[in-house]
């Protein structure tokens, strides 16, 4: 049962991810990205990280992607025109993609030896308490640095917007 659900949502995630690139209209790409986020949340849920799954849907599929869709709607961006690809892209695209995937597979193989398997629901540190404690103890520095990074981005956005007004 778990394997079947995993396969269904893994396939949905991959198909949506390809669709993000293939679609010409920005709204369709954004909706496909929502599909990727949603199916990733289901995969987290299968592994036993229920808080992470809920946060994935609320923050990424909910808030971030709604902002994306909002901006696309506000700018009324149309479908992009298909341009003829350059000779070099046609020649090198497929070999480079295969090379990249091969490298990824090699790294995964190296990092995780053959013996390790993933168990569905095997992850036990996924409750809100565990995540909260981890954020405020062992990952406190990355957490605070990220929040300062976001603050810098907000200040930058305000500076850019004020220039427009003057």
């Amino acid at each position: 049962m778990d394997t079947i659900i995993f396969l269904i949502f893994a396939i949905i995630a991959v198909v949506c991810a390809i669709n993000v690139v293939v679609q010409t209209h920005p709204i369709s790409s954004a909706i496909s990205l929502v599909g990727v986020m949603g199916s990733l949340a289901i995969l987290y849920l299968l592994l036993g990280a229920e808080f992470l799954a809920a946060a994935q849907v609320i923050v990424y599929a909910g808030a971030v992607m709604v902002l994306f869709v909002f901006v696309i709607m506000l700018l009324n961006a149309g479908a992009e025109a298909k341009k003829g690809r350059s000779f070099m892209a046609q020649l090198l695209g497929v070999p480079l993609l295969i090379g990249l995937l091969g490298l990824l597979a090699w790294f995964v193989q190296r990092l995780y030896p053959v013996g390790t398997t993933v168990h569905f629901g095997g992850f036990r540190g996924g409750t809100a308490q565990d995540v909260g404690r981890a954020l405020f103890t062992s990952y406190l520095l990355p957490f605070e640095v990220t929040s300062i990074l976001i603050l810098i981005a907000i200040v930058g956005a305000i500076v850019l917007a004020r220039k427009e007004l003057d």
Partner: protein
Amino acid sequence: MDSFIVISLIKVVLVFAVLMTTLAYLQWVERKVIAHIQVRPGPYRVGPHGLLQPLADVIKLITKEDLMPPYVNRPLYLAAPFLAITMALLSISVIPFGPTIEVAGYQTWMQLTDLNIGVLFVLAASSMGVYGIALAGWSSNNKYALLGGLRSSAQMISYELPLSLAIAAPLLISNTLSLRELVERQSGSILSWNVLHGPFPQIFSFIIFLIAGFAETNRVPFDLPEAENELVAGFHTEYSSMKFASFFMAEYANMITVSCMATLLFLGGWDAPWPAAYGSSLVPAVIFAFAGVVALYHGMHPARRRDRLTLPAFGIIFLIIAGIFLLPMVQSWLVPLFWFCAKTGTILFAFMWIRGTLPRFRYDQLMGFTWKFLFPVAMVNLLVTGLLVALVS
């Protein structure tokens, strides 16, 4: 295992049927309440006091022509109402309505499923529901619909922040994310409900939650996405027949969800305001008996001729219900269900009351209100609550 599946199926069918009936009749109640606020009778023609009006509306909506305007974005135009209604109905699945119930030897909770992230599940479903409205506005290829969709997504993103912060404060006190445990932590009397319970009574977050909930459900005074004097009908301008009806149902289902969440988070769920030892389990019987006696009295002195028949009939029905509430074998689950419905119904009535009395905000006022007032207040409330909880425990 098999009995679990059968019980779950029965519960799903039951909750769905009750929810759909409530959705239809909520609309009748709303029209009646607003009509009486505006000193007019409201729906009156179909059935006694217009009681069959929802049925007539459903038949009308189903048999209406389903128009598909040209130049719409077909897949998204079709998916948007589906998305809106699905996400609105999804949140009901984690809402607990009462304690355990025992039917023919099987003991089960009056809840479809208890997730240990129930609160987050409801938030996630509501944040996905924005897509229904935003995409409906965009895919309709209509400038009014687009403006409605834009307004709605901006409004929902903005009001989700104070809403989440207002939810976080009572969670700090109860220390759980499961909705059923949340109610169990508040059991006792009215003083142990989160809205009045120490160390810091959550009266501010209750009010912030309600205000943000009004905005999340696009209700007056925050119904800018469908402001009819500016935008025709807003995001659902181009929709007709059942597609229009699904937006309508989604709005009412969201209203019910917000009211249920307010009841569960702040008002102690299905707990009575005072312990059963002091007679709180007799309250529903007394209320229904009183209503029955009033109806019978007015049936004796009818103002109109047809009241001679309808009012005594309703009076007898109310008296029978009062008798059922006194039966000891159903009292253990019927009385908590009554309190849950009473609290949720009071908040739903407040929704209608406000729609009947308040004018609509201007759009910049709407945005300024949440970012400059509601969000800071919710933030301060959360900080004070966190500080007091940390000091007390």
